[in-house]
């Protein structure tokens, strides 16, 4: 059964002037969701995937396209921890702080990472090389304590191992 739905016309000014190809890809996602306001979170996911973070400019673009009030888009983008409104470092290190990891010493791992990098969790090193973050449980409790290096989940970590990994990375940057 084919269903034809009327689609809201895309307002002219919504096409981003920068000509950046990533906007075309984002546009495709919004089109797939028929520019429905309830697709906001899906669209934000895609936008962050494409651009790395959600700039004010980008949020305005999305608000325009989905015909949502700017404050509503901002409110949603800041409600969910997954969305970042600031650029991230080239590399990432996520220390899981779930209960299983906590009981097996995640706090010491985080402290070691903070000490090695000289930044607190939730921050990026001043040279922009690495963002140190924490997670609320990755569900990999069987191999606790867990750390995610650049998207790769690694289990049974120790403060020393994490320190070595981070040092290698930071040194390489020098």
């Amino acid at each position, binding site marked *: 059964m084919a269903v034809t739905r009327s689609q809201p016309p895309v307002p002219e000014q919504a096409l981003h002037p920068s000509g950046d190809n990533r906007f075309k890809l984002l546009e495709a996602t919004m089109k797939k969701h028929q520019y429905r306001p309830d697709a906001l979170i899906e669209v934000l996911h895609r936008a962050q995937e494409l651009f790395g973070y959600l700039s*004010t400019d980008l*949020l*305005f673009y999305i*608000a325009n396209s989905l015909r949502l*009030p*700017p*404050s*509503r*888009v*901002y*409110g949603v983008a*800041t*409600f969910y921890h997954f969305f970042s409104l600031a650029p991230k470092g080239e590399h990432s290190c996520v220390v899981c702080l779930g209960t299983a990891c906590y009981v097996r010493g995640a706090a010491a791992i985080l402290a070691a990472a903070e000490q090695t990098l000289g930044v607190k969790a939730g921050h990026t090193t001043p040279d922009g090389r690495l963002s140190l973050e924490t997670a609320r449980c990755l569900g990999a409790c069987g191999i606790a304590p867990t750390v995610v290096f650049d998207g790769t989940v690694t289990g049974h970590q120790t403060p020393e191992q994490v320190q070595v990994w981070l040092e290698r990375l930071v040194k390489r940057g020098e």
Partner: protein
Amino acid sequence: MAARTFTINDQLISAREGETILQAAREHGIFIPTLCYLDGVSAVGACRLCLVEIEGSRMLRPACVTPVVEEMVVRTDTERLREYRRMIIELLFAERNHICAVCVANGHCELQDLAIAVGMDHVRFDYAFPRCDVDISHPLFGIDHNRCVLCTRCVRVCDEVEGVHTWDVAGRGADARVITDMRQPWGEARTCTSCGKCVLACPTGAIFRRGATVGEMERDRNKIAYIVAAREQRW
């Protein structure tokens, strides 16, 4: 419309079908404290001050969103409720910097009134003393986050009555803040029509009219309900 009879604090009361406990209580002059509730906009049951005990229910229920049920037995003023309400008010005072002495709403503030109503002579919790901003970029109005209780009355009145949704809440938990547009300075928020309904709606000194003296901060909250009634009935 069918009538409902029920009991509040041993007093037999009649209510219209679909009426909430709060509406029925107010019509009969029974005081139930509220903060996030505002006539004319939707009720959200968030401040938890209007919680009441209902016989047969294990949970406390917010009077602002709980419809009256025939023969329901409600208590609004038990020892437990009084203690909880006072703690809620104390938590609010401890959460931000509510300094009545230097507040534009001193004497015309619902939070201050509630503190008196619940008998709060001091706050037993430690104050958080957070650092909060004041935004006076708008030519007519200002917002002082030190005084904000996150009741979202501004958000709802802007969305539901003025229909522009300039306000919303950003962040979450203790870090939540009401914002205008993309958390821009209010004066740069292009959606704002400067209608001033949020000023009317604000229960505290958070949203104020600039240049107004303390004595001028008395706000006619009925105006919101009046506007809504006027619109719905198309006078």
